[in-house]
C-alpha cells in the first residue's frame, strides 16, 4: 500500500523537506524571489525569436575580448579570458550568445583588449583574422545550416615567434573565449532545423574548463607553460554551481509534458559525458548532423569543440540534477559539489 501511495506522488505537489528548502533557497538566491516565483520567472523567459538576426537581414555580433576573474566554491579566484557582448547579441550565463537565420550574412567584430593576439572562429564555419592586442577586426560569413554553433578562439602570437603560447589547438580554446551562435531555420518554424524535431522551449548549455596554472599566465605573452593541460575548474555558461541554479538561462525549467531543446556545447579542453536524472532524452543532432543510431539516452557525450542537441520530454515534476558523470567536473579543484552541476526543474 505504501508503494501505491508513493507512485501517486508523481502527479501531486511535492512536499519539501528541509534539504529541499535549502536547495530552493539557493534557487532563489540573489534574485530576491521565492523559489516558486523564481521558477515562474524562468518559465516566462521567452526562448524564441531571433531579434539579432531577423529573417533575411544581415546580422552583426560585436564582441570585446577581456580578462575577467571567476570566483569558485573552494574560495579560489581564477583569471579567465571572456568575450563581452557589445552589440547584436545576448548572453547565456556570462558568455555571449547570438542567433540569426540560416543563410543570412553575419559579421562578427572583435576588439582585443587582451595582451596576447587572438584569432576568433566559428567552428566548422569561418575563421576570423588574427587580431593583435588593442586592435579590432571583423569577419563575415553566411550563417550555417540551422543548428548550434560555437565561437572559439586561438591565442598566441599569430602562431609563431618566441613567447608564443600555443596552448590551444585549432578550434578549441581553453580559457573561456567562446560563445554560442544559434542558426535558426529559414522557415521560421519552432524546430531545430527544417524537417527536424519541434520543441516547446530551449536552453543553451556551454561547458568549458580551466587549468588554474595555465590561466594564471594566460595574459602574459612571454610566459611559457610547464606541464600538460589538466583542468581543475569547470564551468557551464561561464558559471559554476550554485550560480548555475540561480541563473535563469542555465536553470532548466519546464512544465510537465513539454519538449525541451537543450543545445549543449563544449569549449573545454576535455570531453564530457553528461547525465540527466529523471529523464531520457532524444539525441537530435551531434555537431549539427542529425543523429540516426541512438535511441533515448540518459547520459550523452559532448566531445570537446563540438555541440550536441538533445530534446527532453519532461514527464514528471520535481527537481533533477544534470551534470557530467566524470564527477571531478562537478567540483571546484576537487571540492564537491561545485563546477558543472545544473538542475532541471519541472512544475
Amino acid at each position, binding site marked *: 500500500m505504501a508503494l501505491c501511495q508513493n507512485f501517486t506522488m508523481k502527479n501531486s505537489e511535492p512536499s519539501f523537506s528541509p534539504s529541499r528548502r535549502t536547495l530552493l533557497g539557493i534557487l532563489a538566491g540573489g534574485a530576491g524571489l521565492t523559489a516558486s516565483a523564481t521558477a515562474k520567472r524562468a518559465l516566462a523567459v521567452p526562448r524564441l525569436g531571433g531579434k539579432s538576426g531577423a529573417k533575411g537581414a544581415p546580422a552583426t555580433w560585436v564582441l570585446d575580448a577581456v580578462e575577467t576573474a571567476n570566483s569558485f566554491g573552494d574560495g579560489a579566484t581564477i583569471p579567465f579570458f571572456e568575450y563581452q557582448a557589445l552589440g547584436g547579441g545576448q548572453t547565456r550565463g556570462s558568455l555571449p550568445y547570438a542567433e540569426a537565420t540560416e543563410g543570412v550574412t553575419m559579421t562578427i567584430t572583435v576588439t582585443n583588449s587582451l595582451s596576447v593576439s587572438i584569432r576568433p572562429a566559428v567552428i566548422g564555419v569561418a575563421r576570423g583574422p588574427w587580431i593583435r592586442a588593442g586592435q579590432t577586426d571583423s569577419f563575415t560569413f553566411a550563417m550555417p545550416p540551422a543548428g548550434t554553433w560555437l565561437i572559439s578562439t586561438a591565442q598566441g602570437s599569430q602562431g609563431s615567434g618566441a613567447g608564443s603560447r600555443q596552448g590551444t589547438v585549432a578550434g578549441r580554446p581553453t580559457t573561456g573565449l567562446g560563445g554560442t551562435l544559434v542558426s535558426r531555420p529559414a522557415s521560421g518554424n519552432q524546430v531545430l532545423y527544417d524537417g527536424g524535431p519541434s520543441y516547446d522551449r530551449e536552453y543553451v548549455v556551454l561547458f568549458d574548463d580551466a587549468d588554474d596554472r595555465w590561466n594564471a599566465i594566460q595574459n602574459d605573452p612571454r610566459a611559457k607553460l610547464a606541464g600538460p593541460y589538466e583542468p581543475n575548474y569547470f564551468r557551464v555558461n561561464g558559471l559554476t554551481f550554485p550560480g548555475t541554479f540561480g541563473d535563469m538561462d542555465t536553470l532548466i525549467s519546464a512544465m510537465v509534458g513539454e519538449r525541451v531543446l537543450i543545445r549543449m556545447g563544449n569549449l573545454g579542453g576535455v570531453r564530457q559525458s553528461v547525465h540527466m536524472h529523471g529523464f531520457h532524452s532524444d539525441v537530435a543532432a551531434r555537431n549539427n548532423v542529425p543523429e540516426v543510431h541512438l535511441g533515448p539516452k540518459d547520459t550523452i557525450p559532448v566531445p570537446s569543440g563540438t555541440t550536441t542537441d538533445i530534446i527532453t520530454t519532461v514527464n514528471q515534476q520535481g527537481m*533533477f540534477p544534470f551534470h557530467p558523470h*566524470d564527477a571531478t567536473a562537478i*567540483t571546484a579543484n576537487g571540492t564537491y559539489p561545485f563546477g558543472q552541476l545544473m538542475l532541471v526543474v519541472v512544475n
Partner: protein
Amino acid sequence: MAGLGGNVGSNLYLRAQMVGSQMIAGQAITPWFFTDTTTGTGYGFGGDRSFPGAVLEFIEGQPSTLTFDNFSMQDHTVHLHGLDTDMANDGVPMTSFAVGGMQSFTYQFLAPRAGTYMYHCHVDTVLHLVRGMHGTVIVRPPDASTSVAWVGGPSFDEEVLWHLSSYQLDFANLNSPGPTTVRMKPDAFLLNGLETPAARNDVCSRIVFGSGQTAYLRVTNTSFQWARVRLGGHAFQVVASDGYPMAQSYTTNEIELGPGERYDLLLQGFPVGDFPGRIDYLNGTGGVIGTVKTRIVVT
C-alpha cells in the same frame, strides 16, 4: 556469466559496507561497496569480491523496491542511474536526502524498460564512486526472461557483464573530497573489479560461447574515464544504450563509452578461437592511460 540471472526480482536489497580488505594495484585497500547479504556471501559482484556491488535485476513494468541498509557510520545513498525514478527516490542528497549512518531506506519505483542501467552512491560522488560504491542494474523483460534482451529484442545463448571502473590509491584514505580528488590519475583499471592479469581468466569476465551461438555483452562504465572496448578485432552489433534499443543498430569493431554510459553488444558469427577482449581507459583528450584484458573463447 556466473551470477547473472540469479538475483531477479521486484523487491531487492543492498547493504553499504566500508570494511574488509581488497588488493588494488598491489596494495590492500579498505573497499567501500554495496553487498546483497541475502545471497549469504557478504560480498558484492559475483559474491566473490567487494566491488563492483551486487548486480540487481528487476522486472520491466513491476512496482519495485530496493531496501538499503547503510551499514556504516557515513551518509550514503543509492542513485538508480537511468531508471528515471521520481525525485524522492532519486538518491541525491541535494534534492531528496541521504541515508544516515546505520539507517535504512526503501527506494520505490516502477522498473523501466528492459535494459542495462547502473547504481551508485551520490554522496560526495567524486569520492564515494571511485572508492567502490557502484554496481549494475539489469532490467529483465516482463516475463523475467534471462535469454531475451527485451520484448521483440535479440535472444542470446550466453550473457556477460563488463562493469568498468578505476581506482586511485590516494583516494583510499580520504573520507571527504578535496584538492586531491581532481586531476585523477588512477592506479588501477578494472573489469568487474579486477585488473589484468586477474581479469583474464575471471569466470565473470571472460566470454565463452559456442561457434554459431550468440553472446550478449552488457558494458557499463562507472569510471570517470572514457573506455574503448574491442573484442579481438571482430565486429559486433551495437543494439542498445542506456536502457533503450538503438534507433538503428550498427556493426563496428570498437566502441567508446563515456562515464555513466551503457552499451549492449551482440556477438555473433565469431570464428572458433581464443581472442583478447580489451578495454582501454582514456583520459579526457582521448589518450590511453590504462588497459585491462580478458578472454573471448569461441568453442
